[in-house]
């Protein structure tokens, strides 16, 4: 698979490490009353869809940036690549 890196252009997916569902960006609040349940769900439960999935790829063999790649799990087609930093900021994270 070729991942179209927003900064570096087309890169071989073998340069990357895969971290799964990009929902991991939304870490629960450890101070919340429901933190135990929320962290259980965060750490262990997955949507695992057959179709488009937004997922985290780490460019370990490159510029070491984290990407959010939208990829179809049935066809392996990649339709969108974003910097995870931008996605996290747009979701209200400070960094």
């Amino acid at each position, binding site marked *: *698979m070729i991942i179209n890196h927003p900064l570096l252009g087309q890169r*071989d*997916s*073998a340069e990357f490490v*895969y*971290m*799964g*569902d990009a929902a991991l960006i939304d870490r629960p609040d450890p101070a919340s009353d429901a933190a135990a349940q929320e962290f*259980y*769900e965060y*750490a*262990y*439960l*997955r*949507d*695992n*869809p*057959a179709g488009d*999935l937004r*997922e985290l790829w780490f460019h370990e063999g490159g510029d070491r940036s984290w990407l959010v790649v939208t*990829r179809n*799990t*049935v*066809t*392996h087609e990649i339709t969108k690549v974003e910097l995870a930093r931008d996605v996290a900021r747009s979701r209200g994270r400070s960094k």
Partner: protein
Amino acid sequence: MRYSGFKVIKEALTGHKGWRPAWREPKPKPHYDIVIIGGGGHGLATAHYLAKVYGQKNIAVLEKGWIGGGNVGRNTTIIRSNYLLDGNEPFYEFSLKLWEGLEQDINYNAMVSQRGIMNLIHSDAQRDAFVRRGNAMILNGADAELLSAEQIRVEYPFLKFDDVRFPIKGGLAQRRGGTVRHDAVAWGYARAADSRGVDIIQNCEVLGFRIEDGKCLGVETSQGFIGAKKVGCAVAGNSGRLMSKANMRLPIESHVLQAFVSEGLKPLIPGVITFGAGHFYVSQSDKGGLVFGGDLDGYNSYAQRGNLPVVEDVCEGGMAIMPMIGRARLLRMWGGIMDMSMDGSPIIDRTHIDGLYFNGGWCYGGFKATPASGYCFAHLLAKDAPHPVATAYRFDRFRTGNMIDEKGMGNQPNLH
């Protein structure tokens, strides 16, 4: 019809006119006591043991395609019980014992071949780990044998013992491990279950569950609604997709695992060999092809095909332990979809929905587990309590911290 040597001779002398289809093709009834979703090895084994051991009647197995068309027909056919942890080893040893009596039990030649499995050791630390594992196996009633490099050289003279990076220092052998003709497992269980009245309904895709007041009343299928007192799901690979129809999120990701077969060669590899420094395992089929595989591709997939980096990695592993494999040409390669769970171990448990039961998360150990998985799932469905060797395979182990993590990798499914 019972298969036997006498029957084969009789049919040979009478023009083979007496053979009948191995199972019926029934229309679905409106209601069953137990409906099993998934006509693969695990689902068919479940139906067989439900009917034979637990005396259940009025059972159906629903399969969206044809039986045995999923992972039971796409694996590398290895059976073994060389696990370390208490939650796993008794289960897999139970499975190996069932394999040993399988053909008599289901009156079907599944070509169970206990040709032995050999895990190679390449470092002192690995020997320590394998000694520990071997002791855990023996404590659980399995067999294990620690071999020196000299002993392995007698059986496998062609291995690259003096490799600079990965010298072979010894091995852990399980002589009772081996291989089984995988399709025959599905067909044999199907025939045995059918002979006890189980309805095997092919081309019947489950489209949803009918759930009212927290109770599962049946399944909506491509052949209409089928009611059931109990519904058991055994669709590993597609568990996430199926259980999402019951609004369940699972501790599972679906990943693709590739496997390979070379051209047919003369008898070469007597047993199963695994490379301990990378990830590569190989055996030789009775037709002569070298059957081998390695790691997952590593990303979520439902595609049943993988990519080239893993092909390269697997072939490098092969070249590292048996360089002569480089002379063999690859004949076939394919991908299968694995339920990769968060700790690398399976789940056989009730769900929070009354009457809905789950069997899945087999990672890439599902084939060897087929008989015990079916037996334990049948036990759960019939008695509403886990079988004694499957008590650890609970949904809530992730919540309570009782993970069964053989490799100690944590909640990263692509590393198990």
